[in-house]
């Protein structure tokens, strides 16, 4: 018994010393959390200022032919008649408890409405991302491996022209061909796999050319590096050179692109969802801004910002893990 507290003490001290590098490595995460807090605080404030400019929620709730008394009653009920700082405090108090208010059109909690539409968007962007990677990685590697071969030059030009086509134009052309002329696929809606094909194609067309060209450029650049020449001199085969030496370096840059393009992909989904009447959050955003459903719009804005931030932060942290050169920076 007498020696146990003694051991415990040294053990504690040592473990604290061991904690120090761990705490240091946690620093980037703490910085990210601070940035997230700042982002959410400013975005929430911005929305608090901006959204009332679009319209008066009390008028939306009361309907077109409401009497002034009814309006006043609704204002009193939702605290809209109070001074702005009281409303602002109440706004943050509610947000802090994850209470985003109730939808003005359906009366359901706004968070539930948004969450009900989130899976459709996540599925669409997931499918598009998967297709993008499936096409861009082999195509980019093939194009970059020997960029001056005539067949690859020709293919590079086709990719380049595709980069000039906005996704919704491709969507329109797809509808025209496969839904109107050939009648193979349904043009709108969200059901079985046949309804997934065209939205996925249209959405991935936003990213495929960009990513392909980026991977191709990176592979082509890596092929000129000294380490590739060394590998070649040591008798590495062509495929070894491509996949073991040139490609991994090219992929790092491509990963960064995917992270920063996520916001772009999300804004792409808004247009594609609208075009194909796909019931995701982009479609919801357009629909609810037409009916001025403020709590839902606000929840969507916060959720989209959070998602963009999270993807960027995760990419950044992943890079720190993968590339030791970046760890020293804050």
């Amino acid at each position: 018994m007498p020696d146990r507290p003694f051991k415990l003490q040294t053990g504690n001290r040592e473990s604290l010393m061991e904690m120090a590098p761990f705490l240091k490595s946690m620093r980037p995460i703490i910085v990210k959390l601070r940035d997230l807090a700042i982002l959410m605080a400013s975005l929430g404030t911005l929305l608090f200022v901006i959204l009332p400019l679009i319209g008066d929620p009390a008028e939306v709730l009361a309907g077109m032919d409401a009497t002034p008394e009814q309006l006043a009653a609704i204002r009193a009920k939702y605290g809209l008649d109070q001074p702005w700082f009281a409303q602002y405090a109440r706004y943050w108090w509610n947000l802090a408890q994850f209470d985003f208010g109730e939808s003005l059109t359906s009366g359901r909690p706004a968070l539930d409405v948004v969450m009900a539409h989130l899976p459709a968007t996540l599925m669409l962007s997931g499918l598009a991302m998967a297709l993008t990677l499936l096409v861009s990685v082999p195509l980019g590697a093939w194009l970059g491996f020997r960029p001056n071969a005539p067949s690859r030059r020709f293919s590079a030009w086709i990719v380049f022209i595709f980069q000039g086509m906005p996704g919704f134009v491709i969507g329109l052309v797809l509808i025209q061909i496969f839904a109107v002329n050939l009648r193979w696929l349904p043009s709108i809606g969200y059901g079985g796999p046949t309804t997934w094909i065209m939205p996925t194609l249209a959405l991935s067309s936003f990213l495929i050319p960009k990513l392909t060209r980026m991977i191709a450029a990176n592979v082509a650049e890596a092929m000129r590096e000294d380490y590739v020449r060394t590998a070649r001199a040591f008798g590495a085969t062509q495929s070894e050179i491509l996949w073991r030496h040139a490609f991994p370096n090219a992929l790092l840059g491509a990963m960064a692109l995917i992270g920063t393009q996520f916001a772009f992909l999300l804004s792409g989904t808004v247009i594609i969802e609208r075009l194909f009447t796909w019931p995701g959050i982009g479609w919801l955003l357009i629909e609810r801004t037409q009916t001025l459903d403020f709590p839902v719009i606000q929840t969507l804005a916060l959720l989209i910002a959070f998602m963009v931030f999270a993807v960027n932060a995760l990419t950044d942290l992943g890079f720190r893990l993968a590339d030791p050169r970046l760890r020293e920076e804050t």
Partner: protein
Amino acid sequence: MRPPFVSFQKQFSVAQATALSARRSLTGEMVLAIVLALALTSFVFLAPLLTTHDPMQGNLMARFKPPGTENHWLGTDELGRDIWSRTLAGFKWSLSAAFMASVIAMSVGTALGLIAAQRAGIIRTLIRQSVDIVLSFPGLIVAICVITLWGQGFWQLVLTLGLLSWPVFTRVVYAEALSLLERDYVSAATLMGVPRTAILLRHVLPGLRASLMVVMAFHFADMLIAESALSFLGIGAPLGEPTWGNMLAASRDKLIQAPWMMLAPACAIVLAVVTANLAGDGLARASRQQGKEVVIA
């Protein structure tokens, strides 16, 4: 494998090497980009001569005429307006909107990037935070706010696009200006008492020219797409205005009756975006050949 002429080039005089790099920077794609850009801008100015009808004036007797009809060689839309004339008018509308939006984004973004690079501390933190906020803010909500407050119009659209996209420039300018500020000539200027603003404008800004031109070309392409996308959603250009996005939006509901309605505006957008991308690619390659590293964020 390096191309063989590199070892040759070392024997050239500086003047010859410069001439060579200038000639090499004028690659086929750059020539093509210049030709296409001239053609597109000439469409803007020649539109009054080439137009056959009033782009805004409909004729309900001549709705949904297919291409090749007498008087309307690209057909007419749902209100009987001539598609050729509308696409022509769209050159002026869409190209100038995208151009003005990128100019605004470049001015704001470059100014903030320069300031952030020079002033460490609270100002830099503020600018970097606002870059993150603007980038993750759903632009659609801003566009709708602007429309409800000030209505739909050219300047409303241009300002919305410009003020939502400046972080693209800020990131590039910030990264490059940081390294330029480390140069010896900047330290020398500082020691000689040149004011900070003058250092930024006269010693740092010229060094950014190559990168800015590249980013500007790509940004112009992005703005063209963004303008047409917003118009496509009905929250961009005023309804009925002859922009490519509006024409595409109208064609979306008439795909079965009038599939030709989307053809001309779609081709025009693709042509304009491809031209801008070509110019961006060519400029990036040119400055890379002159030994400058161009950062594209």
